[in-house]
């Protein structure tokens, strides 16, 4: 690692590490390209949005999702690293769930992709387990005083996914029409889904 006396840019150090490992045949740059493309193009919060839209429109699916998140998510074809055991929690008018990983940045990759910068930021990791109402307010979500906040710290291999409330005014929308309304931030619990 670079010492603070002479810090090399991480871009250069990454390139150096890749060169050291590829010249010895230990990694294949094409395999790396595949990993990167998969998380840039395929595995992202659209998957989680599809799960939620299905749950909002199919009560039987919602029951299965809340009973065994991993299995119900697999029904839609989503699984893989960091998705070995996914537990889904439902937001209600009087209970709001929000997730964090204080020790690193554990996140349910198969349904949300790789975590966004605010989730990995020390301020979020440190503060949401101490003053969640203040943190959510700073992020633009003001909750009424009678709403109970439940913070889930993913310290082991359980990965939490929030099932947000379906907003009023969307009763006539189809599953496909609901999907684009459902944001990553709502699936972590730092925002609500809003009607178009």
């Amino acid at each position: 690692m670079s010492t603070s006396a002479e810090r090399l840019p991480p871009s250069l150090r990454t390139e150096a590490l890749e060169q050291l490992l590829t010249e010895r045949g230990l990694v294949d740059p094409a395999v790396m390209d595949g990993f990167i493309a998969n998380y840039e193009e395929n595995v992202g919060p659209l998957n989680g949005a599809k799960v939620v839209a299905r749950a909002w429109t199919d009560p039987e699916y919602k029951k299965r999702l809340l009973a065994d998140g991993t299995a119900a998510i697999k029904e839609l074809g989503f699984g893989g690293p960091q998705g070995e055991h996914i537990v889904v929690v439902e937001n209600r008018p009087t209970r709001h769930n929000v997730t964090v990983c204080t020790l690193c940045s554990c996140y349910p990759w198969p349904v949300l992709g790789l975590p966004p910068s605010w989730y990995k930021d020390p301020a979020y990791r440190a503060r949401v387990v101490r003053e969640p109402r203040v943190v959510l307010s700073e992020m633009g979500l003001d909750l009424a005083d009678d709403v109970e906040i439940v913070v889930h710290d993913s310290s082991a291999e359980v990965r939490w996914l929030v099932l947000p409330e379906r907003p009023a005014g969307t009763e006539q929308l189809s599953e496909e029409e609901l999907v684009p309304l459902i944001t990553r931030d709502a699936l972590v619990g730092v925002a609500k889904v809003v009607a178009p």
Partner: protein
Amino acid sequence: MDGIADMGGTDGWGAVMVPARDEPVFAEPWEGRAFALALLTIGRVSGRNLDAFRHALQRLDRTAYLDDGYYGRWLNAAELMLVDSAILAPGAVDARAHAMRGEQVEEPAVPEPSKPDYSATGPGSLREVPEPPRFAHGDRVRAHDISPAGHTRLPRYVRGHVGTVELVQPGHLLPDTHAHFQGENPQHVFTVRFDSRELWGAEAEPFVLTIELFDSYLEPAS
């Protein structure tokens, strides 16, 4: 251990970031390369495992952990694991980086690899635990007030505090030993519910916190 990574409840980080709607997955191309290098390093190249990677992250100093952000710390932890397994000599990455800039540097010789003589019993971390769970829904439990020298997933902010068991999760291998290649020691994992005032005092914002704790982190509380 109680490294920089154990951030829950710590002060001094300022305001949280306000989410951006269309943030790219990797802000810069090197972040994607560092991500992929770390994934390949974790098992295949270093002969270590995900818990050893998390422990490598915990062992980083403040500069290595924070200054180049999330993928910077992944890069540094991957390098640490590769040095631990003697795939790379200490300083090899910096030496190559200097050489790539056209500077005259002597690069260290490639060492004799020394991967741990250890492998997991199966993929992932879920494992069968033959014994019935020690605690059930509603049981009061106290997290041990300990500061282990090695890897742990017991954060400081719950140590010594009393909560109630909310859910009994499937058994997992124990990161504390698996990270050090000392066995999987599968255990039951409990989602434990804490009142915010138990964790932070009477003046705390009222809320509920849940966290997954391994059997050996817990003792019964009256």
